[in-house]
């Protein structure tokens, strides 16, 4: 009987069936990043303006001072005896104590940010109440639109982190597992083309990537109103490039390892610097200048930056070419080395 089955198609099918029959894999690939996005999104959602807690020490003019402060928005004011005021300040129940008298005294800890803020605000209110006039009139324009919030920053980072994690694990771990099981050896004992096998690994990653991307981006848009300003096609292309890059790194990490423990360690070694430096949870620009060459050379930094530029700023795809080139270089070089050094037996 002639062969009517295509080996690449069968290998891909096998990858699919195995993955989706493994509940843990489905959870860690799709459920976990979703939970992370929801959890962090809730934790860092934009809160109403912080209250400033002020105590006024008991004095004949205490009531008047308290009245002035209460007349301004954002103050919670209580009047207490000296001892109680000190106690409350020490326990963090108030940020500042105002001691009225001929001179007002502010009792506060300047190293506590909320106390430093409270000192400025209290001073401002009391000075105005005493008749200060501001020489320059100020108008305020407050911004709270989608695109500038923490969750907007976070979603592209989570997409990048997930593409890295599942690319490395989905290729590296699976290959070493097959090697441990002697399945790789069994495969090369057949006429299977080795390139078919490697393409099935890469192809599998490409196909698994779509739901990963869709779930995180979809959750961002539907649950948190993240505004996608760039083109979907651009986001797709960047994600595909990222997934390919990390599939290559996964292959490289797995190309010689003979134990699951070895490959797990290697993968963590590769991924840890990127978790820390590549701007998943906060901007990588915050790292000092001498670290920036390293930070910018990491593929996840480039992937996250490209995703953020397209999703949040609506930047055109051609402007991301440099970032994509770095990803392609990482993926391509890893792939080439992995192919040369791959241990089949």
């Amino acid at each position, binding site marked *: *009987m*002639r*062969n009517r*089955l*295509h*080996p690449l*198609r*069968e*290998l891909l*099918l*096998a990858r699919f*069936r*195995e993955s989706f*029959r*493994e509940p843990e894999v489905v959870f860690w690939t799709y459920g976990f990043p979703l939970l992370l996005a929801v959890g962090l999104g809730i934790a860092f959602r934009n809160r109403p303006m912080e209250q400033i807690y002020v105590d006024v020490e008991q004095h004949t003019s205490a009531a008047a001072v308290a009245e002035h402060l209460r007349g301004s928005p954002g103050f919670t004011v209580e009047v207490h005896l000296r001892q109680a005021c000190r106690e409350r300040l020490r326990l963090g129940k108030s940020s500042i104590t105002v001691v009225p008298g001929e001179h007002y005294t502010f009792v506060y800890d300047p190293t506590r940010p909320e106390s430093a803020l409270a000192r400025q605000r209290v001073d401002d209110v009391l000075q105005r109440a005493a008749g200060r006039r501001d020489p320059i009139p100020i108008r305020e324009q407050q911004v709270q639109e989608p695109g500038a919030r923490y969750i907007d920053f976070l979603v592209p980072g989570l997409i990048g982190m997930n593409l890295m994690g599942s690319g490395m694990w989905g290729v590296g771990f699976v290959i070493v597992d097959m090697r441990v*099981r*002697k*399945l790789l*050896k*069994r*495969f*090369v*004992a*057949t*006429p*299977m083309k080795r390139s078919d096998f490697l393409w099935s690994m890469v192809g599998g990653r490409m196909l698994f990537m779509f739901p990963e991307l869709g779930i995180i981006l979809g959750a961002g848009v539907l649950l948190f109103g993240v505004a996608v300003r760039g083109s979907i096609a651009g986001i797709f292309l960047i994600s595909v490039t990222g997934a390919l890059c990390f599939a290559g790194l996964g292959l490289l990490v797995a190309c010689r390892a003979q134990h699951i423990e070895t490959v797990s360690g290697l993968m963590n070694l590769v991924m840890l610097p990127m978790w820390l430096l590549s701007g998943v949870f906060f901007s990588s620009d915050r790292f000092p200048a001498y670290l920036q060459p390293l930070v910018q050379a990491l593929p996840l930094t480039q992937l996250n930056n490209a995703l953020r530029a397209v999703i949040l700023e609506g930047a055109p795809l051609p402007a991301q070419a440099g970032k994509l080139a770095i990803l392609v270089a990482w993926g391509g070089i890893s792939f080439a080395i992995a192919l040369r050094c791959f241990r089949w*037996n």
Partner: protein
Amino acid sequence: MCDLAIRCHGLRKQYRTRNGTVDAVNGLDLEVRQGECFGLLGPNGAGKTTTVEILEGLLRATSGEVEVLGMRWGENDDELRQRIGISLQETRFPEKLSVCEILTLFRSFYREGKDPTAVMESVGLTEKARAWAGKLSGGQTQRLAVACALVGNPDLVFLDEPTTGLDPQSRRQLWGIIRDLGSQGKTTLLTTHYMDEAERLCDRVAVVDHGRVIALGSPIELIATLGAHHVVEFAVEDGRHPAPERLSVLPAVCEVRNEAKGVALTVNEPHLTIPALLQLLEMENLTLVRLTTRQASLEDVFVHLTGRHLDEEQTAPA
């Protein structure tokens, strides 16, 4: 010679270890004829698996010549792979793929081959077609491994320890499958450390020890080299057995072996030996606690040649 499925000459495989080099295979010669079932029999560590993996093109020999189906590894690899089927000593198949899916996957690698359904039937796994590989018993897993070796409809089948660790019933099932291969005209090379398996299945057997063939022939020929077809085994109370020189002069005795739990005599005519043995024991005032007779086996051939049993671990060659 075109009627040889496998020919190898002076095969040698050295492994580097911490204490220098070890010769896993040490100048091994082998000729397997087309259509026969050939057995490599030897204890664990004798070099059987290394030899087979070299013949399968999975390992490279340190030196020596190998010809498989008239072709050589490194020259006609794809053609060779199309025509051989392999069952490794140990393969753990993907646990969450079904028997049918795994066979279909393996089938897709071959230009020509058999319908997976037919292969499943031939190894008795039809009922398990939709069962995941992780849920199969040891015997079923081993039959799946053999099925994967057969799905490309190979001319030459390698089975490395196909029944190791299986229960008696599963072993018999596999023996049936392996016998069927012979009736289909396929050449089979199997390794085993079970002498009964080699005796029942193999047309010819090479006894391997320390990486070398130490005896070659059909099971009947090999047993005939003992000079006798029966083994009388006995044990006496407290293990105070008579001296070997007193036993070797008993009628019809060819060989005397002291064993862990008694003495084994290789004999031509047990009906002459046994009365004389009982008489000797009585004279020496010894109490018999065990007396059995059986047909001589390949095990006895191995013990005769090496002084060790097949199930003893191979000690590293000095």
